[in-house]
Each structure stands twice: as structure tokens, then as C-alpha cells.
């Protein structure tokens, strides 16, 4: 630990020493005008000056002791905060410094042939300047009967004809910038001879930045809070302690215009007792691919149906893509019908009150049925509701919603009188078109700009309004002098309607605002904007 107390006279505040000198000189002069206390005097040199200096030093050290007992003051000191002091102060609040976490994910390695292929543990996979390493040795094998260990992976054939198998990777460093999205191109260093390419098989998850000073201060109240559902701050503390990936939360309760669950009475007046806990549980929603068995429901229209239980659909916003199992084609089969539902069987003994499906949207109680058209020929003799096929469906989901609902509803935490439903924020998915002008020869990184924009938007917290100035500000953090953003910035937002689960489109060049509809829970306290990296288009013009 750094020495808190100053033993040297070198760093003394000269104004303070001067003030003490004045004080002593005036004290003596006033009483005895004959005494020489000028700077050239012996009195000054031997008595006044040393006394003033030592007094200033003592006071400075006492003040340093006080300042170092406050995290706020420690973080505001001109010199870098001593980590040990910060740690010691945090311990008073039961808070620990988080060093960040490394993103993890699955990468598909594409091959020219279906031959046994080994990717050793620690192999380096890159995405631009970001570096990952495989966490296990994976052996791709050409047939299922050769799969004998957990680390064996079956090589599959994509519709393009290429062969691929999955390998698990982990980012080399902690940080949110390592959260690549599904489909991102990756590069395998020292690849096998039959290697073609590599691609992220899913959205990576888990990558978190190390705590900043602001993060630490923000967490102090949660540190001393009782970890209960007693109030909004207590809920925050409870959830964040158990689920540190939670970024933002908003607790809606009695009297909030979005709280419609407590108005099940003839006067439609809030009577309390219920809360909706909206949580952003990761930096951004994730895309997850699940394979489901679909039933043919209409042979004439080639319509197929897939149903999701609430466990499968907890926190899911929408289905972004439906393709035959294993297909790597771009695009999706056409979704023709969406039927949201509610499963009210108890979770940990808790059954919430819903009077309408939209009240359960994006929660752990929602269920979903989707219908889509697959024009590929239906086998002869197929029967409706009997014939099945397997499809890969990509879900856009805010993870952990079910786990947090179970945690909150646990009998040791939940209360008989409280009706607390955990929900993912009502989302607006944003696409951006950013046009930059940079001086010839200037250096810039579109990936850094994209990352900065994505972080800024996804970290806005709850709001119905996204200003283009937020985007411009984030871009400028990564531009050198002379570069500029050509206005306007094209912002395109898709709100997932909590009632219909259809996507409603909004567009603006200045301020992307979603109208308030409290009857559907769409308010400033429940809506969040999300942007995925591949939805940020950056065009650069060198001039």
C-alpha cells in the first residue's frame, strides 16, 4: 500500500505555509512591534518558518487520512488511486473490484473435405485485432460412430457443400469488445491443411470490462443494502450480487403507469402489491440457434409450426431466422404467424397475476408458437400434425431471465404479498448508417468506431429516445482531428411490440423516439435501445 502520509516537506502547499507564517508573524508583531520577524530575521528562520512548515505538514497528513477514508475522494485524487486502498475501502461496503471477464463462444471451422481434423488446445483464432484461444483440443470426426469423447465433434455438411465442425474459444483478454456476433468471420492461425474458413457460430457471451471508478461508486449502495426484495435499491443489490452481468434495471411498481397488473379491479385503480423488474442482463441481446422439431400444419400452403415452452422462450424477444436444420444459407423462411402465450404454472411456488399476454412478454412465463412456410416439397403421404421436420431457429434473447425469476421467487427471498415478475427490457433494435469524412492519410479503425457506438447505445439504460448526438459523440471518440461525421445519421429502430411481438419500425435522423404506450408497458422506464455490431454500417469518404 502506498504511504498515505507525507514525510517530506517538498510537497507542502506553499499558500498554506505562507498563511501560517503570516499568522505567527502578525501575532508577534501586533504585541511587540520591536521584534524583527522579517524573512531575513533569525526569529523567522528558526521559529516561524519551521513552525509553519511542520504545522502545514501535520494538517496535510490529517487531511490525507480523512480523504483516504472516502472512496469518492480517493478516486478524485490527482494521482492514480492506490489499488490496495481502493480494495480496503470497498471491503467496508462488501464490494469487490471486478477485473472483467473473458468472452466465450463457439466457432465453426469450415473444411474442404470430411476428414478427421484436429484443432489443438490453445490454437489462436482471431477476429480483426481481437485474439481468442481454443479451450480444448477438438477432433472433428466424419461420422457419428467415431464420436467417443466429449472433445470429439461430428463434422457436418452445410448446404453449400462445405464441411464444418465447432470449436470452443475464449478471448485472450477480458472485455466487451470481444463479444463478436454470430456469423462474424474469424481466422484460425496455423490451420490444418483442409481448412477453408472460420465463422462465429453464435453471439459470444460473458465478455465484460473491468470495473471503472464510476462502476465501483455505483455499486457501493448495493454493497450495504440488504439483499432482499424490500425496495428498488434492495432488488438491485439482490440481483447484481447473484448475477453480476446485469447492466441496467428498472423496477416498476404501484402507481407507475406501466404497472397494469395491479389494476384488476372494476375501477382499474392500482392497489399495489406487484412489481415488474426489467433487467438488461448482458451487454446486448444474444442470438442463440436452437434446433426444433416442426409439425406440418397446412400441406397446401407448406406451413409448419413450432411451439416453445416457457423454459425455451424465457427472455426471448423474437425469432430472427428459421432455416432447415444445418442450413447455412442466408435469409430465413417466411414467418407467417406468431402466437404469444402465457404459462401460469408456478415457478418456485410463485404464480403471478396476468390479465393480458403482453404483461408476460419477455418474461419467464411467456410461451410462443410460430408458423412459417417452407416451400421445399412435402414428402408424399405427409399428414398434417403428424409429419415433422427439424429446423434451426435463431432466437434473439436476453439471457438469464428464467434463472433470475427463479432466484427472486425462491421461497427464501420471495414474499407471500409480493408479486414480482422479471422481464427483459422492451427492446428497440437499432440499425445505423454512419457516413464519415476523414482527411486523406488519416488513420481510423471502423471496428473501433463500431465497437464504441455499440457500447454507447447498449449502455444508455432505459429510455424511449435515442439522439443522434449520442452516436456522433461515440464516433468522435475514435476520430482524429479534421475528421467528421456527415450528418444526418440514419437511425432505424424496430420496437418489438409486447402484445403482438410484431416489429414496429421507426426512423429518424435526429432523435429516434418510440411513442409512449403505458397500457402496453412502453414507457421511459421500460424501453431500451440495442444495437448489434453487424447493424452498424460505416461509410468512409477520404477528403
Amino acid at each position, binding site marked *: 500500500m502506498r504511504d498515505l502520509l507525507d514525510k517530506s516537506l517538498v510537497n507542502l502547499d506553499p499558500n498554506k505555509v505562507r*498563511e501560517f507564517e*503570516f*499568522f505567527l508573524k*502578525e*501575532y*508577534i508583531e*501586533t*504585541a*511587540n512591534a520591536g521584534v524583527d520577524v522579517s524573512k531575513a530575521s533569525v526569529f523567522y528562520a528558526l*521559529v516561524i518558518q519551521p*513552525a509553519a512548515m511542520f*504545522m502545514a505538514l501535520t*494538517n496535510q497528513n490529517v487531511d490525507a487520512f*480523512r480523504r483516504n477514508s*472516502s*472512496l*469518492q*475522494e480517493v478516486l478524485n485524487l490527482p494521482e492514480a488511486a492506490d489499488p490496495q486502498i481502493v480494495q480496503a475501502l470497498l471491503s467496508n*461496503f462488501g464490494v469487490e473490484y471486478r477485473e472483467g471477464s473473458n468472452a466465450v463462444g463457439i466457432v465453426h471451422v469450415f473444411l474442404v473435405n470430411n476428414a478427421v481434423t484436429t484443432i489443438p488446445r490453445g490454437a489462436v483464432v482471431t477476429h480483426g485485432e481481437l485474439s481468442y484461444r481454443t479451450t480444448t483440443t477438438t477432433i472433428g470426426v466424419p461420422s457419428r460412430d467415431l464420436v467417443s469423447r466429449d472433445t470429439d465433434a461430428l463434422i457436418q455438411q452445410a448446404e453449400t457443400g462445405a464441411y464444418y465442425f465447432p470449436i470452443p474459444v475464449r478471448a485472450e483478454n477480458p472485455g466487451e469488445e470481444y463479444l463478436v456476433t454470430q456469423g462474424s468471420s474469424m481466422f484460425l492461425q496455423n490451420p490444418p491443411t483442409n481448412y477453408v474458413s472460420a465463422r462465429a457460430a453464435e453471439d459470444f457471451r460473458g465478455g465484460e470490462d473491468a470495473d471503472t471508478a*464510476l*462502476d465501483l*461508486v*455505483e455499486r457501493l*449502495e448495493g454493497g*450495504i443494502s*440488504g439483499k432482499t*426484495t*424490500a*425496495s*428498488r*435499491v*434492495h432488488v*438491485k443489490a439482490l440481483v447484481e450480487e447473484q448475477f453480476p452481468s446485469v*447492466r*441496467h*434495471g*428498472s*423496477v*416498476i*411498481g*404501484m*402507481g*407507475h*403507469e406501466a*404497472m397494469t397488473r395491479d389494476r384488476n*379491479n*372494476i*375501477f*382499474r*385503480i*392500482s392497489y*399495489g*402489491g406487484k*412489481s415488474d423488474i426489467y433487467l438488461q442482463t448482458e451487454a446486448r441481446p444474444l442470438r442463440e440457434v436452437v434446433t426444433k422439431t416442426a409439425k406440418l400444419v397446412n400441406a397446401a400452403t407448406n406451413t409448419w409450426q413450432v411451439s416453445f415452452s416457457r423454459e425455451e422462450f424465457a427472455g426471448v424477444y423474437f425469432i430472427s431466422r428459421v432455416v432447415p436444420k444445418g442450413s447455412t444459407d442466408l435469409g430465413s423462411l417466411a414467418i407467417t404467424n406468431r402466437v404469444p402465450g402465457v404459462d401460469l404454472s408456478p415457478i418456485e411456488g410463485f404464480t403471478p397475476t396476468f390479465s393480458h399476454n403482453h404483461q408476460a412478454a419477455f418474461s419467464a412465463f411467456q410461451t410462443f408458437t410460430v408458423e412459417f412456410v417452407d416451400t421445399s416439397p412435402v414428402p408424399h403421404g405427409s399428414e398434417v400434425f403428424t409429419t415433422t421436420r427439424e429446423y434451426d431457429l435463431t432466437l434473439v434473447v436476453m439471457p438469464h431471465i428464467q434463472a433470475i425469476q427463479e432466484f427472486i421467487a425462491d421461497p427464501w427471498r420471495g414474499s407471500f404479498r*409480493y408479486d414480482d415478475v422479471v422481464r427483459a427490457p422492451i427492446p428497440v433494435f437499432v440499425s445505423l448508417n454512419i457516413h464519415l469524412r476523414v482527411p486523406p492519410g488519416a488513420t481510423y479503425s471502423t471496428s473501433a468506431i463500431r465497437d464504441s457506438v455499440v457500447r454507447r447505445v447498449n*449502455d444508455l*439504460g432505459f429510455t424511449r429516445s435515442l439522439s443522434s448526438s449520442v452516436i456522433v459523440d461515440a464516433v468522435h471518440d475514435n476520430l482524429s482531428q479534421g475528421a467528421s461525421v456527415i450528418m444526418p445519421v440514419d437511425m432505424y429502430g424496430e420496437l418489438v411490440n409486447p402484445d403482438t411481438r410484431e416489429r414496429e419500425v421507426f426512423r429518424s435522423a435526429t432523435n429516434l423516439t418510440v411513442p409512449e404506450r*403505458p*397500457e402496453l408497458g412502453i414507457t421511459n*422506464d421500460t424501453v431500451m435501445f440495442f444495437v448489434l455490431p453487424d447493424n452498424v454500417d460505416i461509410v468512409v469518404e477520404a477528403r
Partner: protein
Amino acid sequence: MFFNGYSFDSGNVIIEMMGNFWAKWFGDQRTLGNLMDGLGSLYYETFNLTEETFNTLSKDTVPLFHLRPCKLLELVHGETALKLLDKYGEGNEYGNGLQYGMRTQGSEFAYTLPEGLVGCTHLYNRVTNPGLVLTDGDDFTIQDGVIRFVRDPEKNPAISKLEENGTVILRLWARNAKEDKEFIWNHFGYVLHIWMKSSEHYRKFISALWDVVVQGPSRAAVQIALSAVTGVPFAVGDETVEMVTTSSNRLVVVTDKNAYTFRPGATPLVEEGDHLTFGQEIVDTVRVIASLEDAAWQVIPGMGVGPRMAGGGTSVVMENSTVDLEYYGRDAEGRTMVRFQVRGEPADVEAFWRNVHREGIRNGETFANLLDTRAVKVGQPTEMDLPETVNPMEFLLSQFLVNNAFIISVKPEHFAKGAPGLGFLTHLQRRLPAHTAFIIFVETSGRNDYYEASDLVDSAAFGKGVAPPTDSVDAVVDVGPVFSLIPENCR
């Protein structure tokens, strides 16, 4: 020698302790005495600083200000030109000869103070045996980092002046100087993200909310927080009232353990001989009504139901008076329809009752069915089967709100001077259960308004005997439900 109270700041005591040579034989006792006085005074300042540092360890003792017995003040001529104009919030009353933007008396002799200096009792021209003593309030005032003299200090020959590079600097000593180092904010307030100007109210508010956070939202902590934002104390408890006395500038309630001071005009709720329990209301300035058993609700003239409380876009007011239950005949399906008088815009009132009937149909029992007094409820009730009258506000409270809402009834004109005010209750609201709400009833001398707080930001307003105003009173901004990793804007 003007510092006292401790032996180490007394030159004579120090000399006595130095031994016979210095105390009896040394020739220049006067100079020695002054030197020891001066040194002792500096040690006193260090002692003060140390004591303050100790006190910052507790939320209940954290000092409001850093106190300095004597602080050198160097005032630079001409530095304040841009800061002289008076602003709103500085306590000026405009319109009576004074116009906004106009300089008040003394503004012309104004100087910027060192950062953090918020006050002092006197200004001396010398550190000891001063020939000039200026008194706060009479000769100068300090506000918002500016000191304003009644007379031009630069023309006062007793004040020493320096001239450095053509700039005139006045040198004075500020006695009992208060420096705002924001101890409360820097040691406790920042944890809760609540900033106020340093004050006793701020300290009490932070302390109360800290207890809410650590221990949960107890009644006691809520009352202490209310006391902090209004400056109106509740009883400490286990004490007996010995005297209730009123003067022109205050009401004082004396018990065998405490003396409680209130603004004049506050109505005492206790009298001599009363035994007080913890949290008991002593005056009617701030009252917490959590049960219909508490007769205090009966003085509330009405209660509004706005979009936040009832959804939709309507606002109606339910009066606290007995009104007739109005029989509206039957609807097309033969269901009995009844209403009682609620106030508001006619379209809102109509929409309100239409919704009530529709919800009743949806739920299988209309409002009339619910009010049916028959023991055996067969068929639709007739007019004779229904109560004749109803108290709308009591109905609202007893049927809907009583379980999870409570009322805070306040008279702001009797709040303590300098009290932060109700706006800060939003911080309390964040720390109360989301499943509950509080409703604030504000009684002013001219008119009674009420508004809903906690989540209930919107409201209808209510006026005794007059039609409800169309505007709403948004006195409390609800930032409560939101939490995030990025601190809200607390400063």
C-alpha cells in the same frame, strides 16, 4: 488571545509548562507569550482538523463544514465583475422596487471568496488585537462564493492593501471561517447518489436513507427522512410534554428530555402532560396517515385519480364528502347502472364511469352488483337495494388504496427554513417497496392541492369549492424505479 477552551492554545499555560527559566527568568515574556499563543492557536486548528476527521467516520457525526478559527482572506479587486448580478434562488424578492438583473445593495462592493468558503462570523484587520471588526450580517454578507460589503472596504484605511502587478489585494482575517469541503457528500452522500448543499438537513436525510438501505424501509427511517426534508421533528419518544409555548417567531414544545422548535402557525397536536412515543407527530405540519383508523384523513378534502393510478388518459377527483349514489337505470342488457359524483372534466368523468361499467361486465359483477345490499342477490339490484349515499374518497381509500398506500399530509409553509423540501422524497421513494406508494397531500393557506408521489407523478389538483384546475402538479419527479451502472446525475 481570543482562542480558548484548550490548554494547549494558551501561551501562559504553555510557558508554565516549559519550566522556571522561561516562566520566571526569561526577559522577554511578552514576545514569548505571544509566540506561544500563536503556536497554540495553530495547534488548536490541527486539533480541530483531527476532530473533524474522527467525526467523518460516522454518518451521524460527519461535520457540515471544516471550521477554521482564523483564515487569511485575500480579496482581489475586480475579480467578481461577472458574478455580481443577483440570480434567482439568492433570496431576493423581485417586483417591489427590485428588478431581476438589478444589483442589490452591497453588490457593488463584492469580491470572490476562496473556493469553499461559505461563511465567517467576523472579519478582522489583524489576527490579534484587531483595530477593525466587521460583523456578518451587519457589515458584510456571504453567499454563493461572493462576499458583499455594505461599505467600500478599499476606502477603509484600517484594512491592509497590497498591490501586485497593478492589482489591489485586501488582506483580512476571517474569524470562525466555515469551509465547505462537502464532507457529507464525499463520505456518505455519494454512496447514495444524493447531493445537497451541506446542511444539517442533508446529514439527517442521508442518515435516514442509509438506515433504510441497510435495515430496510422501516417506519422510523421513513419518518426521520420526512423530518429531514421538511425540518419538522417527530418525537424522540418516552418523554412527557411540560410546556407548549408560542412566540412571534416560533412554537416550542418542551418535554422533560427535549425542546422541539417549529415555525409559528404550526398547530400543536400535544399538550402539557402528554406522554410522547417515538415518531409521534407533535404538530400538524407533517402527518403520516397509514390507516383509516387515523382520523387525520378526514381533513383531506379530496383525492385525484390520474393516468398513473388508473391508466387511460383521464383524471377525476373523488371528494371527501357524502354524496348521493345516483341510480342510472339499466343498460341495454338490463344491468343496473349507478354512479356517484366525481369531479373533473365532463369527458373524463363520463369516460371514467363508462370504464367502470365495462370492467364490471368483464369481471362478471358491475359496480351496482358490488354495492348490492341484499342478503340474497338474485337478479339485478333495484334502486332500493343500493346504499343511498357514499363518500367517494373514503370508498377509494377503503376499497383500493388502504392496503398498500399511505398518505403524507404536509403544510409546506410551516416547514423549517432551509429545509430541502418534498422534491427530495423521490430518493426515499426509490428505497421503499415498489409494491407500495405514498400520496402527498399538500395543504397551503390559499388553496389545498394534493399530488401523488412515489410512482404517482401525475395527478389531478383539487381546490376547495372551486372546479379542479386543468393543470396537474408534478412536484415530485419519479426517477425512482431506474437503476443503472452509470450513476444518475446526482449533482
